């Protein structure tokens, strides 16, 4: 079975970390990921940019494009895609194409991406 593990934390607090602190935390993550990769249990890994870099698409009679993250609480996270696009305009077009049956899509640039090392290839 493939599982997705989603990370949550206080963005303001994380954003206030010094570069050294951030690097230390990421290095710790890296070590733990290597353990999973060694057991061939690791799929793709991504670190997202802050929500200030996000753009949200909301379905309606016409698709609305809004600055900022998805902030409603009545919908739940159901899935995600990783796409490779040259610009925000291009990814917005791609996302509009993925808008099939209601809901919202949050577009978030990926800061760091590591392709699958074991599981989920």
């Amino acid at each position: 079975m493939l599982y997705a593990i989603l990370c949550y934390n206080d963005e303001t607090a994380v954003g206030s970390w010094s570069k050294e602190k951030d690097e230390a935390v990421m290095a710790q993550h890296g070590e733990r990921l290597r353990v999973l990769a060694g057991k061939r249990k690791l799929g793709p890994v991504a670190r997202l940019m802050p929500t200030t870099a996000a753009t949200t698409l909301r379905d309606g009679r016409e698709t609305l494009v809004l600055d900022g993250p998805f902030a409603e609480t009545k919908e739940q996270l159901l899935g995600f895609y990783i796409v490779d696009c040259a610009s925000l305009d291009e990814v917005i077009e791609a996302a509009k194409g993925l808008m099939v049956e209601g809901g919202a899509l949050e577009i978030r640039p990926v800061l760091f991406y590591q392709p699958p090392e074991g599981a989920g290839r």
Partner: protein
Amino acid sequence: MTELAWIDAALTSARPQAIGALLRYFRDLDTAEEAFQEACLRALRTWPINGPPRDPAAWLILVGRNSALDHVRRRSKQEELPSEDILSNLEDAEAETVRRLDDSHYRDDVLRLLFICCHPELPATQQIALALRVVSGLTVKEIARAFLVGESAMEQRITRAKRRIAAADVPFETPGAPERAERLSAVAAMIYLLFNEGYSASGGDVHVRVSLCEEAIRLARLLLRLFQGEPEVIGLTALLLLQHARAKARLDSEGAIVLLEDQDRGLWNRDLIAEGLALVDKALRHRRPGPYQVQAAIAAVHARATRPEDTDWIAIDLLYATLEGLQPSPVVTLNRAVAVCKARGPEPALRMVEPLEGPLSGYFHFFGVKGWLLTRLGRDDEARIAFGRAIALARTPAEAAHIRLHLDRLADSGAGAQAPA
């Protein structure tokens, strides 16, 4: 992370929101700060025992408000205090507070707090000092070090600023759209000023300077989280990120400034550049250009060039032309002339620069650029005169040394002079 470090990070991140809300209740900066301080002390006592609250900001606002009200009551009635029992049924109260303080309230609270710090009656240096003290929570000692002044002088500066604000009339009603726009642009200007304070000065402790830049970025992000759809706020954040990305490459081992085209681009922070470029993309979608967006776009063109010779100078020339239209200034035209020289040669650039001699007759960079353009045209004698004026106007030994380098090259009548700015 240790428990104390976690609490410290949570208190820092909740600070602008909490003090902003307390300021709305008490309409007095000192009372709001004291109430927040008291709430922090209680947090340090109770969070390790009870665990962290769901919404630290809401907790701090509630506890801060209650403790300040207790002080008022105690002063007026000399009554016995209901000590810590305020904290006992806090869970329900906390949820209630969260429900009441919706996002738009928080937004105006933080904006008001920031706006008070850059009140037009305060000189720029007081604005920055006050914002660092009140919003960022830096100690007076830390701020004094950043500005290279004594602690007591800085203490006085902040006290004076607070007194001026108390005397000035700051409206506490929810601002209308025009007031909000006006506040936003004043706050953006203050954040930009704070960044430049850290970015441009060559003297002082490098680490302190860098932390000023980082603090400015933190405030810009805070503002952007509150005003996600404001292209100029997006642009400002992008601009700061793209400029700060070059911080490591800007100074050599002796602390001298390294020019953009001589910088080791491998030292540029790629993460900050990626985020800055993503934000520029976001801002431009609005098709509502403003000075911060255009400056960010110029920084983005530089950031995209892996080598100096890959720089798209035609794009930079066009962007400076846009900036001239939005914010006409001889300094902007001077910067544009450098791009024009790179894109179209020294002749049109010199034609652009010559009329600026009047307004910029006391400006070091004007004579540096003029001398450089004259050198490129082979007019060495005139170039020498311009460089001589530049040296006389240099503010730091590093600036003068840099111009002397140009003069030496002239003496050798060497080819391929370098851009002075």
